[in-house]
């Protein structure tokens, strides 16, 4: 009631531009949030290079790596890993060692449920694996009530659907696309080929100049450069403190994703919101507690910590600096 802001003081709409798109969408196209790399050991011959606007993966000869986004070609190829068979003439696959074993399970189209399985078309026979979690959506149909009212999933051949959702588990040693690590291998048209983050088959543009990113987003974003964002640093910090990658470095944020900064506030301290701490807390790692101020606040490496209005560096007050892990 009094004082408790029942209405979220600031919900960072900017941070979640894609409220509609499921959060777990791994992607390299620029119009969807870019996930950070989870590892810094890359397959042989692959390294990272700086290009205007950030860093990209490149091959041994410095040519930028592009990912063919398998989710954009489902209409033209049932087995999306074979899309480039007699297509993509200007693109050269980045092949894994010849003896490498594929370790990524792909969605290879629906099979007629009534071909096997007892039960009605719903394939409701005992033991049919349905996607875990929500009660049997039986795969998904996008527009239930939309243009095609009724475009809604039946119990259609659940194993593939479960596999395609990355749930229902993949065979041992294999990954599903939804929870694939950075680098997996799939059996491509020209042999075992690398896939980045489960959805982007790795190619290089034939005759491409090093450090060029001119084909980023080609063919209606089927082809995107593989952008490198360093893995998120591990933090020993008070509850809720996180890090966000801005331009070229990670900056510390509070639990709502607002930037943390420090600086001398002189007399116009009024607008500065200190990062509140517990007076009984003895601090942790680089973080200590200043008990002399009206409200006990955090000190990071000895400097007082304040919370910015949002997640933009631009909105930091004058003569202050954002804190880095």
């Amino acid at each position, binding site marked *: 009631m009094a004082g408790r802001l029942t209405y979220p003081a600031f919900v960072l709409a900017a941070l979640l531009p894609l409220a509609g798109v*499921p959060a777990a969408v791994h992607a390299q196209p620029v119009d969807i949030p870019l996930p950070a790399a989870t590892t810094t050991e890359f397959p042989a011959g692959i390294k990272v290079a700086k290009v205007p606007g950030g860093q990209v993966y490149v091959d041994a000869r410095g040519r930028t790596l592009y990912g063919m986004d398998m989710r954009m070609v489902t209409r033209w190829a049932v087995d999306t890993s074979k899309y480039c068979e007699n297509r993509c003439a200007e693109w050269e696959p980045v092949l894994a060692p010849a003896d490498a074993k594929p370790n990524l399970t792909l969605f290879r189209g629906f099979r007629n449920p009534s071909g096997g399985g007892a039960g009605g078309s719903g394939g409701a026979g*005992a033991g049919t694996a349905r996607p875990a*979690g*929500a009660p049997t959506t*039986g795969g998904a149909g996008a527009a239930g009530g939309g243009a095609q009212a009724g475009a809604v999933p039946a119990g259609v051949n659940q194993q593939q659907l479960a596999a395609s959702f990355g749930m229902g588990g993949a065979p041992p040693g294999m990954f599903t696309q939804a929870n694939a690590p950075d680098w997996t291998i799939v059996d491509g048209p020209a042999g075992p080929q690398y896939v980045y983050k489960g959805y982007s088959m790795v190619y290089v543009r034939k005759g491409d100049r090093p450090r060029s990113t001119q084909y980023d987003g080609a063919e209606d974003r089927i082809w995107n450069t593989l952008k490198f964002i360093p893995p998120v640093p591990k933090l020993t910090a008070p509850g809720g403190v996180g890090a966000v990658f801005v331009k070229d470095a990670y900056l510390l944020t509070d639990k709502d994703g607002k930037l943390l900064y420090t600086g001398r506030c002189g007399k116009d301290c009024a607008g500065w919101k200190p990062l509140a701490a517990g007076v009984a807390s003895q601090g942790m790692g680089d973080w200590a507690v200043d008990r002399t101020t009206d409200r006990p606040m955090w000190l990071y490496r000895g400097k007082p910590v304040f919370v910015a209005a949002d997640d933009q560096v631009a909105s930091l007050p004058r003569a202050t600096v954002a804190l880095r892990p």
Partner: protein
Amino acid sequence: MAFDLSRRTALKGLMNGSAIAVGVPLLDVFLDTNGTALAATGAPVPVRFGTWFWGLGVNPNRFFPKGSGADYDLPPELMPIKDLQKKISVFKQFNVPLDGAPNLPHATGGPAVRTGRAILAQGGLPGESLDVTISDLIGKRSRFASLEISSSGDPRNSLSGRGGGNLNPSEVAPSQLYARIFGTGFKDPNSATFTPDPQVMARRSVLSAVTEQRQALEQSVGAADKQKLDQYFTSIRQLENQLDVELTKPEPLQACVVPKAVADRPVNAEIDTVMKNHELMTDLLVMALACDQTRVFNMMFNNGASSLTKVGSTITHHQLTHEEVLDTTLGYQPNATFFLTKIMEAWVYFAKALDAVKEGDRTLLDNSLVMAHSETEFAKFHTIDNLPVLLAGSAGGRVRSGICVDGKGSPISRIGLTVQQAMGVAVDRWGTKSMETNRAITEGMA
């Protein structure tokens, strides 16, 4: 026992404690404060909590009562519950605001009721389901923390879990359920030796230490403050008594009878098999509750995108809700509604089975709180506002039953909050974003 207080004297202390100047009742008109959860013998009867889920919603204009409050009107689809109307409350006009998250067909409604959150991606739960929260509180001392059952044959059909991908799998076959409850490992509750819970013993010692402060404090305050401290220490005394009861051997359970074994049966989504399996497993569950093997249960009658079919037909219930066109004269889809009628029949069987077991002067249903809900309002369009929810039983007298509550468009998480508070969970806000609420349901009368 160190305090050589037999249960009866401990409880007597509870009953005729000094006249307690009770402040404003903490709980509201809907949640009745003192609750009469005491069996005739004075021993508190365990209060149980459960959920009963059915897929593909209802025909809204034939299900929801027009009025609200006590003795509400019964439209055609709600008619089956008329014998138990006094013990079943109906909730209408409670919405599921998604704040822009996609309304994933048949996937968003269920988790919203159970976790007060909107799921962003297929599969799993966005947070801990309320039955697990309640089970953490009351399920610690019974053999099973909770029992999950699915009568349409799918072990993955479950809405109970701590969030993320892992869900408590459901038992699908009556024979397996029988083996799990009454097979090896079943101890007759009335004969087992009783070991007090060390955690409760530790808490008991802390409270007694606090009581020792009584003299020192009460001597140093004026008369007005002394009365307040009297009240405070009497409340401590009552808390001590509750812990004492937990530390003493429970009374024998009169209604507990070990049923005979159940034969193997086919398990599939044909409506008649499902109804029979549902009845068998309901009877087993009721006896498991009567023998205090578990105090939390989740029954999933059919799946979200229900795959129920009639014998020999190839068209699932789900397909009918989409494909079958509305019959303009009847105003609903007759074939799809056939399954809904069967579902309501199963629900009434379930509630009556609980109501048939006597526990002192009350029934097992009176000492339980069963939340029945679906995952959509009108399946043809996947609407999730005005999602149908029923509450059977009164949680040992803590909840008023037999009323229809009009949510007037407020978030459905209010029901989840009220249910958890009724079961004693210390929670004052629940749900996230637009579904975050601290308003439990107080208006007994709309």
